């Protein structure tokens, strides 16, 4: 498996690992059976994601894509976070091996799952805003 230097950097030194105690939105996608779980924590003030942390069970690409996704949405607005695509995460990591593209999809979905949870907690129907999130674990 030939990972780019950026993937290896984000794998060996993942950014924003951990949990947020009083998170405003928590999303989890994937499952242990398939070997990938990503859990994303968001702190949101007004319309801005002020903090973002993650925990991932999975391969090197799964860790790197979740790490990169947190960097790409931290300090951004919710709208900007909703625009985050798996392709953008992949490009930011200088590409992924073809068999690992699904990891970047999971990272995109983890962000969306956390925003889904945020809107649910706000009493707002998330589906019209976030759209369906295929691999989400609902609490």
């Amino acid at each position, binding site marked *: *498996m030939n990972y780019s230097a950026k993937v*290896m950097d984000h*794998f*060996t030194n*993942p950014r924003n*690992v*951990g949990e947020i105690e009083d998170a405003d939105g928590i999303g*989890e996608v994937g499952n*242990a*059976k*398939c*070997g*990938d*779980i*990503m*859990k994303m924590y968001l702190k949101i003030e007004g319309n801005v994601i002020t903090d973002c942390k*993650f*925990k*991932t*069970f*999975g*391969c*090197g690409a*799964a*860790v790197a894509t979740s790490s990169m996704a947190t960097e790409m949405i931290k300090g951004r607005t919710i709208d900007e976070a909703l625009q985050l695509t798996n392709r953008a995460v992949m490009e930011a990591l200088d590409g992924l091996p073809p*068999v690992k593209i699904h990891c970047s999809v999971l990272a995109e979905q983890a962000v969306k799952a956390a925003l889904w949870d945020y809107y649910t907690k706000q009493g707002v129907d998330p589906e019209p805003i976030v759209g369906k999130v295929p691999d989400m674990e609902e609490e």
Partner: protein
Amino acid sequence: MEKRYIYADHAATTAVSDAVLQEMLPYFQQHFGNPSSIYEKGRENERAIIDARARVAKCLGADPKEIFFTAGGSESDNWAIKGVADKLAAKGKKHIITSVFEHHAVLHTCEFLEKHGFEVTYLPVSPQGLIDPKQVEDAIREDTALVTIMYANNEIGTIQPIAEIGAVCKKHGVIFHTDAVQAVGNVEIDVKAQNIDMLSLSGHKFHAPKGIGALYIRKGITLPNLIHGGGQESGKRAGTENVPGIIGLAKAIEDATANIPAKIAHLTPLRDKLIEGILKIDQTRLNGDREHRLCGNVNISIVGIEGESLLLMLDYFGIQASSGSACTSGSLDPSHVLLSLGLVHEVAHGSLRLSFGEELTEEDVDYILETIPQVVERLRAMSPMWERMQKENIRLNADKTRLVKEEA
């Protein structure tokens, strides 16, 4: 502790040894002749191959005429299985017996034959990764053409009762093939005493180069030609011989088989120290039988982490190893070998295989035992699966094959 570099993947491949390389070198330039040529430059290489064939045969207890050089283990397996199938189908024998945890070179060949009208029985293995000769005997039918059971498993290192399985096959007049790719140089092999009719081996697993192997075919069994063409390998496998590879294979198998008792004596205590040390980590399991096991094989599942990230992190610390996780197998499912032991996916994903050669030292073992717990702790700290296991008191069950919620 200072960073060390430890190659712990000998079951994948090994380096060509100095002694092997030195024997091979003259055959690239000085002795470049085609063994089929009439002049001395060719004849000297023909003699070298005759000599190499005898050397390989001697190491297996075979006759030189029973040794056929191939390009490696997969080719030998394919030839043996498809060859016997082709030969015996004409006599109405269209049943093959194998096991669920064979190498893919055997499994995929059997699946191919199923598409061509053969029936295949895939014997299950015990939770320890062993096959009982009684299972083989019970599966043999009137129309059984072949039994093919691996000598030692490439992932979990379990060694099968090959002589006993061979005896069962002999009793019932069924041809017995074994993929001994992982066994050569680790286990004493005598094809006659162990009732083996056909045996596959691969040079690069014991310090010969990649791309050279052999198939032992007992006298009296005639397989169809694998490659049609010239008269090489008794006309069975045409094509100008890989002379340096053949010379290298002969030297490598001599060294490997001469060294078995010393290797076992050196590696067994180191392997056991590693197994005991790694099993001290909470929520781990040893995969494969403790006793009937290759002296250089350690295979442990570490729950809550995923195999590929474990390998990458170990590589970062200088330890090169292997895993049976889905991500490293290149498919959605973890290794069929681990699943055959009854492991659920969640337990199989966190597997680690360490396989060693004789250069392993006590210092290497100490370094590995110091590094693995650190790496596991780091990966578990970022694992939502581990987090859930802690919060909900989910643990390995009694036989450590699946995860269960323990009541407080």
